[in-house]
């Protein structure tokens, strides 16, 4: 299933592949954003993060977000992947690659895509501790 999914994946994200996906003779600037599972002081002994999603809606919503970016920045080429399932510390949970003739568009589209993804994608995460305990991470109200 996941191999066929355009935006969600339960496998580590291959950034080199995403860069290749957006490469074109007309691209002058390419921006790759990686969101990484970060260890902070209050996390204690977090071992991994488990991402879960409302899969069908997440696919639709991410597709809408990408379509919006393509409409706003017509020359931009976009690759986006979000992990579901267990993600180890240090691994990317989300990767967004944008390529455009002019770098300002690649940066602007990249920023739009990550901000909207965080704001709208119906995805949740649970911290898993070495002790075996787990905790849902607080989020923000999802918004269309």
């Amino acid at each position, binding site marked *: 299933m996941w191999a066929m999914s355009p935006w969600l994946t339960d496998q580590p994200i291959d950034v080199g592949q995403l860069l290749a996906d957006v490469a074109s003779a007309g691209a002058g600037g390419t921006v790759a954003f990686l969101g990484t599972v970060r260890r902070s002081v209050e996390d204690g002994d977090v071992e991994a993060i488990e991402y879960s999603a409302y899969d*069908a809606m997440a696919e639709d919503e991410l597709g809408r977000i990408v379509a919006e970016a393509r409409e706003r920045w017509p020359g931009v080429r976009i690759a986006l992947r979000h992990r579901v399932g267990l993600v180890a510390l240090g691994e990317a949970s989300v990767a967004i690659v944008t390529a455009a003739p002019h770098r300002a568009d690649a940066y602007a589209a990249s920023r739009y895509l990550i901000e909207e993804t965080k704001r709208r994608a119906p995805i949740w995460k649970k911290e898993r501790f070495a002790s075996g305990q787990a905790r849902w991470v607080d989020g923000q109200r999802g918004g269309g």
Partner: protein
Amino acid sequence: MTPGEPGAIRVTVRLFASYAEAAGRDALALSLAPGATAADALAAVRREPWAARVPPSPAVAVNRRYAAGDVALADGDEVAIIPPVAGG
């Protein structure tokens, strides 16, 4: 109105993440009066014992798209109460 009553619309309410965990299941079947809205479905969900954790104005989706409370539901619709999102 109870399931099977003439004119009732039947919708599935999907639960996710902490809501599914608290409810012990990932879906509810609701039967609502004709003309019922997303807000009506939410009100029905609030009668569940676990639903105290649902905030006053949660995000709601109808058929995999965020929807306002006044959106009218149709028979067979998929409603979801979206817990605060934490992707990215």
